[in-house]
């Protein structure tokens, strides 16, 4: 096996892992605060991609800046979904929550299909063509930028949760919603913001991927499943777990594509998932429930 090939796989894997991490951070935030699994996560990501695509093709905004608009749009969407739908079934059985969000996923995916058609799209970015060579290994600039932005956003979210009043309230509500209610927290508002931020993360992730990979409305399901894998591997509800899990899964898939074949790479992450579920269901960074 060629060493350069492995090094190339590692580099691409780590760089793309930033986007995986950002997706998973959004999902884990939503789960950690509300105990709801967002089955529409991947489809929200697809909408993030299409917002970025619209900006690039209609207004000529590069996705390196357009991600902020995608994040803002998805934030609003997340707040609406939380207030109008999820809030009503906060205490319903898990399967009802899953089905509700599956319904949202179906609506999102197929609205995109009606609006944009089934053909794959790709956003042209001035950066995407550029590459950087480190010895024999090439670094795709679009991936590097995506990684840097994803890392920065995750750090910002971490600071928000640790240092601001709203962030602290959010963590308190995640730990004990009843206690938070007793001390006068507006729990519903916290939930709305948490869902909004989670959706914004995945929206930004979508915008960052849009110049790297071609996408179509049907990509959402696979993205959801990948996010679930990462979050379970890292530990449901754990922010560092989601971040580390994103890098781990991305590198594993990237190396899987090198050692097996590109179409088998998903098998690696599912194998990882099944192993984690069986031997350490709380995930690498999870706490015992």
């Amino acid at each position, binding site marked *: 096996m060629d060493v350069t090939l492995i090094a190339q796989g590692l580099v691409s894997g780590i760089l793309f892992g930033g986007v995986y991490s950002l997706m998973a951070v959004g999902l884990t935030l939503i789960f950690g605060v509300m105990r709801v*699994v967002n089955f529409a996560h991947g489809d929200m990501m697809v909408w993030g991609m299409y917002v970025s695509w619209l900006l690039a093709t209609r207004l000529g905004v590069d996705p390196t800046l357009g991600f902020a608009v995608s994040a803002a749009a998805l934030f609003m969407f997340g707040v609406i979904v939380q207030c109008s739908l999820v809030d009503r079934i906060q205490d319903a059985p*898990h399967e009802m929550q899953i089905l509700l969000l*599956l*319904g949202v996923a179906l609506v999102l995916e197929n609205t995109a299909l009606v609006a944009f058609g089934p053909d794959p799209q790709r956003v042209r970015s001035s950066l995407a063509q550029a590459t950087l060579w480190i010895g024999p290994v090439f670094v795709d600039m679009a991936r590097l930028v995506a990684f840097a932005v994803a890392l920065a956003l995750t750090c910002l979210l971490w600071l928000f949760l640790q240092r601001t009043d709203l962030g602290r309230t959010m963590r308190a509500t995640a730990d004990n919603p009843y206690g938070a209610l007793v001390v006068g927290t507006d729990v519903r508002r916290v939930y709305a913001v948490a869902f909004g931020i989670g959706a914004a993360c995945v929206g930004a992730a979508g915008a960052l991927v849009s110049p790297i990979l071609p996408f179509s409305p049907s990509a959402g399901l696979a993205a959801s499943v990948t996010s679930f894998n990462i979050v379970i591997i890292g530990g449901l509800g754990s922010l560092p777990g989601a971040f580390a899990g994103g890098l781990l899964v991305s590198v594993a898939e990237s190396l899987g594509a090198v050692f097996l074949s590109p179409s088998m790479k*998903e*098998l690696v992450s*599912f194998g990882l998932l099944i192993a984690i*579920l*069986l031997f350490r269901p709380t995930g690498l960074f999870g706490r015992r429930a």
Partner: protein
Amino acid sequence: MTRGLPTSREAWLGAATVAVLLALPAVLTSYAVTVFILIFFYGYLGQAWNVLGGYGGQLSAGHAAFVGVGAYSTTLLSMHWGLSPWIGMLVGGVLAAGLGAIIGGLGFRFGLRGFYFVLLTVAFAEVCRIVALNTDALGGALGLYITFTGDPWQLQFQDNRAYYYLALTLMLLATGVVALVERSRLGAYLLAIREDEDAAEALGVDTFRCKLAAIVLSAFLTGLGGAFYANYLFSLQPNAVFGIPLSVDVIIRPVVGGAGTLVGPLLGSLILSPLAEVTRIYFTRPGWAGFHLVIYGVLLIGIVLFLPRGAYPHLRRAWTRRRPDA
């Protein structure tokens, strides 16, 4: 209560419905027969899912894996060894049950519940799909095609109505099996597990064996359905038979009709299968592809918000209110 023997009026109603369904093909157009086949087939799959998901409360989002295993094994046995699908479907059912035993054995042994179990089932179905996509012996991405001979011994019929009766038989058979389970000790244990697993265990219910029995039975029935699928459509593609959309199709009907009730999956299929077909036909015009699934999604959201126990309990209440002597 839904448990216990049906009242004589319910029994009459059931018998009358079956009689009408038996006579119906005589007057239906060929297209209407097709719609009924879909109603029966998805009602059958929903009923099979119901054992595990409805009564046992173990939400499987990977039932496509069992459909796929049943469909592929029946077809391969027939292609390579000339084994009649009538026998092959039993083999397919047993293999699907074996996969169910593996998933359940691992998942329940390690105490996976709720969302974790959902993901385990999704992961196994996706692994099956990827393996089928990448194995040349299984036809790879192109899948398998069955040559049509019209030989009834090969589970192929010239007349659509033969499939109608076959699908109807499957659905009634599954409903009979689920009715037996509902009245058995296993059925009572499964309900107890669904309502409060820890309490059931504290009372001495062997929850592991009950859940395992439920997933094996559910997978066996679903595998038989896979054989029907293969020999009705004559082609198998990994993304279609192992894909998550098929799993969602299997779940959505019992949930809409009323999961954990005998009539729920059938009612759900009676509502949704024609709706899916009509909207699909109506919105296939260019530019509207996918619109039927938007309607589907909105409907799913509406059901969860407004009829969280499905349609059947409401229908039943309306029925008993009208006839207070029941």
